[in-house]
């Protein structure tokens, strides 16, 4: 299990932010929906509902995202060996993906604004496959991403 290298420690912030961006809109939608429903069906005061729900639900969503991002960071990892690259990901639904070196068609490294600030990079590996035609590994140390790319590309090629 421990042959896997962890992501960059700062990656947990990236993962938390991503989880937060996913969790927040539905929670706000839930607040609005519940308020409208309560006002229409129960004749409740919308202002009070908005105040309570609007405070608690998004906060709960953010807390969940905080925990989820951290958990995802703890479970994530990658391992480069002579066969290829293995990537481990997922909190509830765990998955482990393997790409052989010879199967890599090309790679991308990209850095968003937050990545640049935290010194992170995302490695994207393209194969000739269909479902796994592109495999992403986010939250790498920027230098390590370049190393992985160099290790994966430029070996023997029999991509098909």
């Amino acid at each position: 299990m421990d042959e896997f290298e962890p992501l960059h420690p700062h990656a947990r912030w990236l993962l938390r932010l991503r989880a937060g961006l996913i969790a927040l809109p539905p929670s706000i939608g839930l607040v609005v929906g519940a308020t409208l429903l309560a006002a229409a069906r129960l004749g409740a005061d919308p202002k009070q509902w908005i105040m309570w729900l609007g405070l608690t639900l998004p906060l709960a969503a953010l807390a969940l995202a905080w925990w989820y991002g951290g958990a995802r960071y703890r479970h994530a990892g990658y391992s480069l060996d002579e066969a290829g690259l293995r990537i481990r990901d997922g909190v509830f639904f765990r998955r482990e993906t393997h790409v052989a070196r010879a199967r890599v068609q090309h790679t991308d490294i990209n850095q968003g604004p937050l990545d640049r600030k935290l010194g992170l990079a995302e490695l994207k590996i393209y194969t000739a496959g269909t479902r796994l035609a592109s495999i992403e590994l986010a939250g790498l140390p920027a230098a390590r991403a370049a190393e992985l790319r160099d290790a994966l590309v430029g070996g023997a090629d029999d991509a098909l």
Partner: protein
Amino acid sequence: MTHSEPLPPADSTATAQALRAEHERRLHPWSWLFVLLYQLRQYAMPLIVLLLFGRGGGEWWESLGIVFAVVLALGAVLRYWTYRFRIDAGELVIRSGVLQRNVRHIPLARIQNVVLRRNPLHRLFGVADVRLESAVGGKQAEAEMQVLSQADAEALEALVRQSRQSAGDDSAIGAAAPAEAAREVLLQLPLAELLRLGLISNRGVVAVMAAVGVLSQASEGMFVRMVQDFGERVFGYAQGMGLERWQYAAMIVLLLMAVAALMRVLSIAIAVLRFYGFELSQDDGRLSVEAGLLTRLRQHTPLSKVQRWWINESLLHRWFSRRSLSVETAAVAYAEDAHGSGEIVPLAPPRLIDELLSRWRPRLGWPSLPWQRLHPLAWWRMFVQASWIITAAAIPLCVNFGAWGLLVFLAVPWGWLRARRYAAHARWLLTDEWVGWRGGWLNRHWCLVERARVQAVRLQQSPFDRRRGMASLLVDTAGGGSLVPPLRLRYLPEADARRVFDALRRG
């Protein structure tokens, strides 16, 4: 049936030499006409609908249509004037474009698939529509030559074949096939077999659905009006006869049966249209499939480029004691295209498919393979999953229809039965060279992949799986569009799944 004589065999070596020697060639002089017709066809359905059912009176519509057609025609002629190709040092070089010039080099040895298509119009002009497909994904073929003269098309076909032989590309596994002299016919489908194919397939249903989709898209109001009109007329007619309630019911049942029968008749018609004169032949390491009543399609697939083998046996197949075999090559395009398909054996007795498969891949050892069982709780996993889906479906139904929505839960026993039967029948396979899956219950399938073809592997575990020591694998290969289900080895004991994962990792 004069239309259906087979295309002449593609061994025009002399023309191939000429094609190679010449510096640059154009498409066939009539190609602009075919490009234009092809483009017009894209808009034909909406145009026809507009003309027939449109509210009328809009004359500017018609003039706009004429302007549109003229623009298209000009474009087609321009395309003809600017499109040139040549064969140069084993490469096909295509120059095209008016303002945006484009030069494309395709190494002939990289071409995965050659598709020749001739409809009656093509035959009238002595031309063929040629598609060359390489392993690049996406919907577009690598080169679409619309259209070449019959001689040029066949010369190109021959060149692609020669280049592959000289490149020694068949050395890998394709060479295992016996290198017999020339073309050998492996399978033909007589009319009786086509009737069976039509009965088994549900192409009629698919075609009707597609037509309904197009109609309702083209003019929603019109479509609804048509359906209402028809419904009212039938209803009025029935009322006029003054029927009892049970007679109504009987009539509805009869009507449904008539519709089902009609669908089957349509299926048979489509099967005859598509597969009339079907012939599967082998020429060295290359398979050729040719079929079609009006539009004749010929495509070639090198055996060495096959990524995946898929055998299908639906319930109807089983009743007729038939199966079908399809292959996928890395050329993604054709899997989702009406131009052709990887279905190299649309219908054959199981024994014949066994023979063909063990001839093409003798080291596989088909059909006696060491299939292995799933995790003992696999059925429970499937049943739980089905129950979740049923529950998810019940919620909106209950909101809409009240307690009647609970009727959905009648599907639970069915889900239970299916899970039990599926898990009892499903098997997975790992040999030194192959990985595979046998799945299904009423409709069964076998999916086989050479380990050397695997692009990437993924081991997956849900929370349920982790609790019960279970895991599933996704084995990804090139080819097969997004419509084709991927090879999944589901619900294996965790240790086995890990073993398969590690084995595939090492290649």
